[in-house]
């Protein structure tokens, strides 16, 4: 126990994991679907945060891969494949799709890449709406229940645990990536591509890897989503969803796993709260959407202006709480040293 206390990061992780595991049974049944969606958002945002913080790139189309995962799982399941195979195929297909389009796309940087990713999603949405085999604008209905080794995922609580397990896998992978040697190379890449390249980091390969990995995460979340909701359509994956993920990353702070989790949680809860307020009696019909847009916008603007480090790192610095992963410690201590020596 004493070694855990010496490492508040590990302790905090254990507490968060315990609370997260208890949530599905503690929450009132009507709130469990919100929790599932929160967990799915956290999965996507963890990947996007890696891409933005470690690849140094903004994706305005991350919901594309959520969509690819959702459609892949739905199509395979509807055509009679075992549902667990369909679920596993979702992240694989999303990763492959990202690896494929990443080759030309990742020649772009900065706002070019931001618009290119947005364009990819608009193209996907437009195409999906035209394909009969994909259900067109109406979408795919009648996705069978997920069944793994004879266990049928039938209620919301079971999906909550499924999403939780998926999130745990994603966080473990992300953590290993961050702590690995390539992770440090990626970190260098986010600050200066040229410097990273000249110090021997295989920039193109790493970028494609982190892009594909983040797409894989989104694809996994999309697969779970398809089985959970039982139906996918172009309307389930609006451009707005991609922007929402960016808001979550920015609010939580790019490049930290804690930040991704915090961002997804804070935004989801805030939206739920606003939705409750907006649908109260006497409120105009447009109130929920007005409130949620206003909050998205204001959060994004205020976070960029006053807390560009994001919620978690912003708070961590002020309370001197070391809740970041190992790499962050070495980097921040290194940059602190550099700051001292330049002064």
């Amino acid at each position: 126990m004493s070694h855990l206390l010496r490492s508040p990061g590990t302790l905090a992780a254990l507490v968060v994991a315990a609370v997260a595991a208890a949530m599905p049974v503690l929450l009132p049944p009507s709130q469990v679907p919100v929790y599932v969606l929160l967990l799915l958002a956290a999965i996507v945002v963890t990947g996007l945060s890696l891409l933005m913080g470690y690849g140094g790139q903004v994706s305005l189309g991350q919901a594309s891969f959520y969509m690819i995962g959702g459609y892949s799982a739905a199509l395979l399941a509807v055509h009679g494949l075992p549902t667990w195979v369909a679920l596993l195929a979702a992240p694989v297909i999303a990763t492959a799709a990202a690896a494929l389009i990443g080759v030309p796309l990742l020649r772009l940087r900065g706002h070019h890449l931001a618009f290119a990713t947005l364009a990819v999603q608009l193209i996907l949405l437009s195409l999906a709406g035209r394909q009969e085999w994909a259900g067109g604008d109406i979408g795919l209905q009648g996705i069978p229940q997920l069944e793994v080794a004879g266990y049928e995922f039938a209620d919301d609580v079971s999906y909550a645990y499924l999403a939780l397990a998926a999130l745990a896998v994603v966080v473990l992978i992300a953590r290993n990536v961050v702590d690995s040697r390539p992770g440090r190379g990626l970190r260098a890449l986010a600050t200066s591509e040229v410097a990273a390249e000249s110090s021997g980091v295989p920039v193109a390969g790493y970028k494609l890897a982190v892009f594909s990995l983040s797409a894989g995460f989104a694809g996994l979340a999309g697969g779970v989503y398809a089985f959970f909701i039982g139906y996918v359509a172009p309307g389930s994956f609006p451009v707005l969803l991609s922007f929402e993920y960016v808001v979550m990353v920015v609010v939580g702070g790019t490049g930290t796993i804690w930040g991704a989790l915090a961002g997804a949680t804070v935004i989801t809860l805030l939206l739920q709260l606003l939705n409750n307020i907006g649908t109260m009696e006497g409120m105009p019909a447009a109130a929920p959407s007005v409130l949620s847009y206003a909050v998205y916008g204001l959060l994004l603007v205020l976070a960029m202006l006053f807390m560009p480090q994001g919620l978690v790192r912003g708070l961590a610095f002020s309370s001197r709480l070391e809740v970041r992963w190992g790499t962050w410690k070495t980097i921040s201590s290194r940059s602190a040293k550099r700051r001292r020596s330049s002064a």
Partner: protein
Amino acid sequence: MSDLLQYLVSGLAVGCGFALLASGLVTVHRVSGTVNFAQGMFAVVAGLAAGSFLSAGLPHGVAEVAAVTAAGAVGLLTGLVATGKPGTGPRAALIITLGLGFVAYAVEIMVWGDGPRSHPGLGGTIQVAGAYVQRQHLLVIAATALVFTALGLFFSRTYLGKALSAAASNPYAARAVGMNVTRMGLAAFALGGVLGGTAGVLLTPMLPISFNSDVLLITNGFAAAILGGLNRPGLALAGALTLGVAEALVAGYLDASYQTVVALVLMLAIMIWQASRRTALDMEAAR
């Protein structure tokens, strides 16, 4: 044959709208280095406001000018938030303008609701070489020609226009001769608002606009502007007209729902082609 002419004219008209949007993007990017995601929002605000002014009884002309002026004010406000705080880099500014787009959604839904709206433009058609051409289309083309000419003269002939170009090309020297470069950026944002607003009031009679039309507008504007590296209004105009005509031809001869796909694929192809001619080093220098 008369079909083709009709598609060409309507394509040119829509392309002109994109060109005005793109010129706003270019103006803001040249002077402040910011890619303004809220550029499409300016058009939406002006398009919706013009409709309200018209139904409030303002005559044509006055209503449109008032709406464009409002868009200019919104542009100035956007610039203040996105670039007013010292130390806000271009990447942060892009995300801030994205956020301001959301804030605008909230305001637009409150004021105008969430359905698509339109307002009457110049009604009627005239016959040109056997084809019926809508007078609104010709108005849009003429107005765009006028705006681009005025814009060209402004940047090449007037002191303020030259100063704006100067501040963009060498901020240090601009500050050394006493310019306030941030304020020049704000002027560009206001001008961007006016240009976006002009696109909005001209396009709304042809394509009904709702609060979230901004994504499609900004994507098309960006696609046009990217041809000139976001810095050259002339190439942006060429890009926008090509885009508009290509979309009209696809919609006319193939399938209307593929027109956006064509535009987007074109944009991706141009960007990737441009990037393959550049090295990582000068991209980084440009950041």
